């Protein structure tokens, strides 16, 4: 492979630092790829060619001047549109924020800018990160680069598809119930949901405050780890941010890449293998082949029981919509974004209602209604209150499990990328996509998805879940699994039709 876009972020960073490539060349290559491919894939809501090239030129000047640069300087990145970027349109893929230009940067964007990564643009997603297929974007659907008749996962389908189609070497995603990991699994990319509180949420448009976590999307674990370290660390502007050292994920990814997992104990969750909601046979086959490889690398596999995981999905669909119903109240047409029906005759209340009616899509409305109901007087104890108690049990299951094992593994998602429209008719069928990823969010620990194989020609992901602030073990296991692949799975995607 000789193309710039085929290189990993780590390779590109080294090439730029050592003068083999300029950041402008690299950034231009990805911008050109976007121009060639994104008419088909539709991963981007907004491309900032000028801004990206300006940063690239700064990096090249700095290299020429012999300045010390960060480990990813000059390597371009795409950012999910739920993350606020100063001067760049930010909509969370919702009509209610169409045309809004933020006056400030999210903390993680400040850090990306400080580390001098050119920002290519903003990626498509399910509206307000609610969905598992990116079909709920208010603007357009994003296609899966492996099969354009299929979904790229969600909510971060745009970031995953951009990386899978090599329109970006790196992307930022956010994960509330699986929105980084599940798109990673179905597009054959690597995605990490870090420990909750490990990465600042300041400037992340809130869906569910107690669950939302920003993290990296990349083609392999090392690239993800490099980006993870750029954006991580305590932020005084986010009071849920953890004031502790960032787990050494880059070091862990390098260690994993040596292919040695001896002494590592991995747990297989018993409850994930049971019940009607179990994974497709093809997914299970690829996952079990992955387990065999992990064993070959020296890992010890044990079965652990996490009985409360069975209730994670319904618990999530009480907590997340409850918080969302409150978080999304601010979109009322008063201060910014869409305002509908303001003809000078209607009352404020009518204008607020019309704005929300026109500005929110069906899935967002469904969750606002769910959450409003779950918090309402007379129901709050039975729904929101009970869900919080179950959440505590899920946390305890994890804590008990990590007394026995270093990490837990599972398939990332029960099924491969499905065809457009296959699950939009039945919300529950869509929600099942996050069956295995949601427990981690409820607990607050880290989880990554790494490509493990194919089923029906489509990628399958293996999830590694670690203890709180144990992000490093998840990267180590993922990188070890990658070391068994002669060619990175992410590099085996077929070329996009019509290019």
């Amino acid at each position, binding site marked *: 492979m000789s193309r710039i876009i085929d290189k990993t972020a780590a390779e590109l960073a080294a090439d730029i630092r050592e003068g083999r490539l300029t950041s402008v060349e690299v950034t231009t290559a990805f911008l050109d790829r976007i121009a060639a491919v994104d008419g088909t894939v539709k991963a981007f809501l907004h491309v900032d060619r000028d801004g990206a090239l300006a940063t690239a030129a700064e990096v090249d000047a700095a290299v020429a001047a012999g300045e010390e640069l960060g480990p990813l300087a000059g390597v371009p990145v795409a950012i999910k549109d739920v*993350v*606020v970027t100063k001067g760049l349109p*930010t909509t*969370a893929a919702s009509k209610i*924020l169409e045309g*809004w230009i*933020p*006056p*400030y940067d*999210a903390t993680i964007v400040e850090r990306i800018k400080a580390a001098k990564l050119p920002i290519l643009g903003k990626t498509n997603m399910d509206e307000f990160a609610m969905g598992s297929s990116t079909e709920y974007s208010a603007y357009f659907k994003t296609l899966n680069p492996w099969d354009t008749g299929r979904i790229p996962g969600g909510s971060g389908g745009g970031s995953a598809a951009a990386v899978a189609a090599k329109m970006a070497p790196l992307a930022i995603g956010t994960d509330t119930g699986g929105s980084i990991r599940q798109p990673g699994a179905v597009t054959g990319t690597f995605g990490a949901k870090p420990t909750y509180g490990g990465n600042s*949420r*300041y*400037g*992340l*448009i*809130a869906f*569910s*405050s*107690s669950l939302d976590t920003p993290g990296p999307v990349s083609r392999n674990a090392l690239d993800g780890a490099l980006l993870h370290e750029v954006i991580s660390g305590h932020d*005084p*502007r*986010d*009071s*849920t941010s953890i004031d502790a050292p960032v787990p050494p994920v880059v070091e862990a990814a390098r260690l994993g890449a040596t292919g040695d997992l001896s002494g590592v104990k991995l747990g297989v969750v018993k409850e994930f293998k049971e019940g009607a909601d179990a994974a497709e046979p093809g997914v299970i086959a690829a996952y079990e082949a992955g387990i065999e490889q992990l064993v070959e690398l020296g890992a010890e596999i044990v079965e652990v029981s996490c009985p409360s995981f069975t209730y994670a999905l319904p618990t999530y669909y009480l907590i997340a919509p*409850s*918080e969302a*119903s*409150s978080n999304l*109240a*601010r979109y*009322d047409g*008063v*201060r*910014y974004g869409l305002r509908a029906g303001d003809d*000078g005759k209607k009352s*404020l*209340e009518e204008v*607020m209602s019309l704005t929300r009616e026109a500005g929110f899509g069906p899935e967002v409305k469904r969750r606002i209604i769910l959450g*409003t109901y779950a*918090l*309402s*007087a007379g129901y*709050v104890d039975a729904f*929101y209150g009970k869900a919080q108690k179950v959440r505590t049990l899920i946390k305890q299951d994890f804590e008990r499990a990590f007394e026995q094992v270093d990490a837990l593994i599972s398939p990332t998602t029960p099924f491969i990328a499905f065809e457009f429209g296959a699950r939009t008719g039945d919300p529950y069928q869509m929600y099942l996509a996050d069956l295995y990823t949601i427990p981690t969010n409820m607990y607050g620990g880290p989880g990554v998805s790494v490509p493990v194989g194919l089923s029906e020609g489509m990628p399958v992901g293996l999830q590694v879940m670690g203890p709180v602030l144990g992000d490093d073990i998840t990267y180590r296991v993922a990188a070890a699994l990658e070391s068994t692949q002669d060619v990175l799975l992410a590099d085996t995607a077929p070329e996009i039709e019509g290019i």
Partner: protein
Amino acid sequence: MTKLNTFEQAVATYEPVLGLETHIELDTATKMFCGCSTAFGAEPNTQVCPVCLALPGALPVANRAAVEATIKIGLALNCTIASWTRFARKNYFYPDMPKNFQTSQYEEPLCENGYVEVVVEGEVHRVEIERVHLEEDTGKTLHVGGTTGRIHGATESLVDYNRAGIPLVEIVTKPVPGTGALAPEVARAYTAELRDIVRSLGVSDVRMEQGSLRCDVNLSLNRPGEEWGTRTETKNVNSLRSVERAVRYEVRRQSALLDAGERIFQETRHFHEATGETSPGRSKEEATDYRYFPEPDLAVMEPSREWVEELRASLPELPRKRRERLQAAWSLGDKEMQSVVNADAVDLIEATVAAGSSPAGAVKWWLGELSRRANESGEELTALAITPAQVAELQGMVDDGRLNDKLARQVIDGVLAGEGSPAEVAAARGLEVVSDTGALEAAVEEAIAANPAVADKIRGGTHAAAGVLIGAVMKATKGQADAATVRQIILDKLS
């Protein structure tokens, strides 16, 4: 509408139960959850940021100074300070509330179970405090184009978010039964005491007229021995006098309804300064469901016991102690001191004494003539257009014999009319005591000549009769003579 009962009729039949909710804006330098300034009076929407405008993605961070101030208030109100406390979201839509939820506290307030004691007509009333919690203020909406300034009839509404996010402490009493006919005075005394306590802590300027202290008055009536009645909540009662009037009015209104066999609706009511009446606002029975839940964007707070004890040790002299100290210093009896407190004159008298007046003089003016003026004009004593320094100056002129009481009252007229300091008013209006003994002696001679019978009585030893002659001299000098001097001249001449 049923005709109102008199207050006396009402309390003869019913027992009032009071409840008071007070909001106090803290005067921290920055807002509750962001770094914006809290200064009063800035241009609209100049003290705002992504956090207090609720831009997408912005997150709150709690202001430690506000938490500290709230703990101090709780300690001064004899509350227990929580060792584990958190914020909660109170969800409802309103345009002056940027997030469409208020970050407040619900099941876990910072302070609970305190009390305040107030003395009314010699009786101690203990007002139990249910909770003291911390929340954020809303912005201000200005309705333009209507005639009333209310939303009804307005063509446009303008919102100023400068106030949005200013730390607000809410202090809620438990129901206060047993005050009977003193309910209005107890409500007022409690509010005044609370204000004085908070002011002494230096955590708020507690200015009711600026809205940094706002009261909601809850009131219900029941017949003796029966269960408590349905309460109404009268909102934003914004002066001590209004607190008293609002209670009085609700007692009269509710009693008339109950007498007529009608029911009281649980509702919020508005107080009207001009008429002293209340009128219905929105009904609580169709009220919003606030859907409270713990605020997931803010960490739980666990104030350490060491910190709480440090704060307790740092509390300044509280009003009650201060009053005891001042009462001794001013040599006042209990009843007199109570009058000073009830008149809200402690600060005024202290400042007047500090400006050089004798305590007796300061008490005399503020409780006498000036209280009467305030009553006449329906103002608070503190709102009168005369400063403690001016009162001290006035008393100084009396002490020097330059003014007598009658002249001094005329000088007060001038000061209140904005004519300047007492000395300036006295000079401009020519209000000085006639100290020219020659002129006084001539006036006395005239008075003796005009009243020979009275003069004989005095010569015969009936000194009390001198009053007639003094009156005549005062009349002749248009009141500008010093009565004691005149008396002395008369007695000298006739004995």
